């Protein structure tokens, strides 16, 4: 068994830049959402249909990304 048919696309989910990657692994498709700024794999899903695997990964990622708050800061040096 080998991973093949890779697809990778940039998306914005809940205001966060992510990569949605999907590939075929045996009889399944695996979809992964990675937050670009941190490199964290936010969500992973698998399904025998690529679109559904991606949809489930995106749903999970949106739910998890919604937990991350952005705080207002004075972004001057040492501020």
């Amino acid at each position: 068994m080998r991973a093949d048919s890779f697809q990778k696309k940039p998306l914005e989910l809940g205001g966060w830049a992510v990569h949605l990657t999907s590939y075929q692994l045996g009889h399944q498709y695996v979809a992964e959402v990675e937050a670009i700024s941190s490199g964290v794999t936010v969500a992973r899903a698998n399904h025998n249909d690529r679109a559904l695997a991606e949809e489930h990964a995106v749903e999970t990622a949106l739910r998890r990304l919604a937990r991350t708050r952005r705080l207002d800061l004075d972004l001057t040096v040492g501020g």
Partner: protein
Amino acid sequence: MSNYAHPETLVSSDWVIQHLSDPKIRLVEVDVENNAYDQGHIPGAIAWSWQRQLSDQLRRDVIPRDHFELLLSQSGITPDTTVVLYGDNNNWFAAWAFWQLKIYGHKDVRLLNGGRKKWLSEGRELSTEVPVYQQTSYQAQKPDYSIRALLPDVQRAVSSGAAELVDVRSPQEFTGEILAPPGLPETAQRGGHIPGARSIPWGKAASEDGTFKSFDELKTIYASEGIDGSKPVIAYCRIGERSSYSWFVLKYLLGYNNIVNYDGSWTEWGNLVGAPIERGLAVPVGALAAHAG
């Protein structure tokens, strides 16, 4: 890989292919949990879970020596085994395992350059078969904590400036805009960074395919932030796994001495009562003297 300070600590996918049936090699896929492993892994690889097997969740610590010995024994590893680690998330947790194996004195530990991501993208063979190896009676060395920073070490570094602090989290975590990587639970009360820390995100050391950048590129990246091996360095992140990755880069690829990993990281310092923090961008290296004045 030849011009790294310790090229023997990295292996390529081709090297792994050539050693798949070598009984002296043990491949271990390491991640927070083993979901990815279960979907398919390098043939012959076993799985270690950072959460369940490599960290003491009651003490918040590395696993005690007897647990470590049991884990390696159950993995069919002897002190003479070459342990090759790889994983998802760009080898972060594999690097943590590398660091912990070194704490307990395992001699020959290596990382698969590029980790799981590169293995998959190259279309390499995967298996769902979980191998079982004959149990050993592994005996670990006394823990060597010279590669680990604990809170008092960091407090001394902040007050004396005797060591450089390298924050390897994302810029947004460093400034305090966010408290944890997007999508992960917020595990600190405050956002920001340890006073005086340089911001050198772990990802700067990685190429697009997940492999480490060249020696010269790495040297330039760290030198641009004033890290050139002339002073001790304390690397930290949120929970110590990304900083294990950068610790590996500084110690084994660049060959700098006196590099330690602060696994307490931001989840300790950011929650500490009375501990000073800074927010916002780092002071540029060239302006450090003026800032201090």
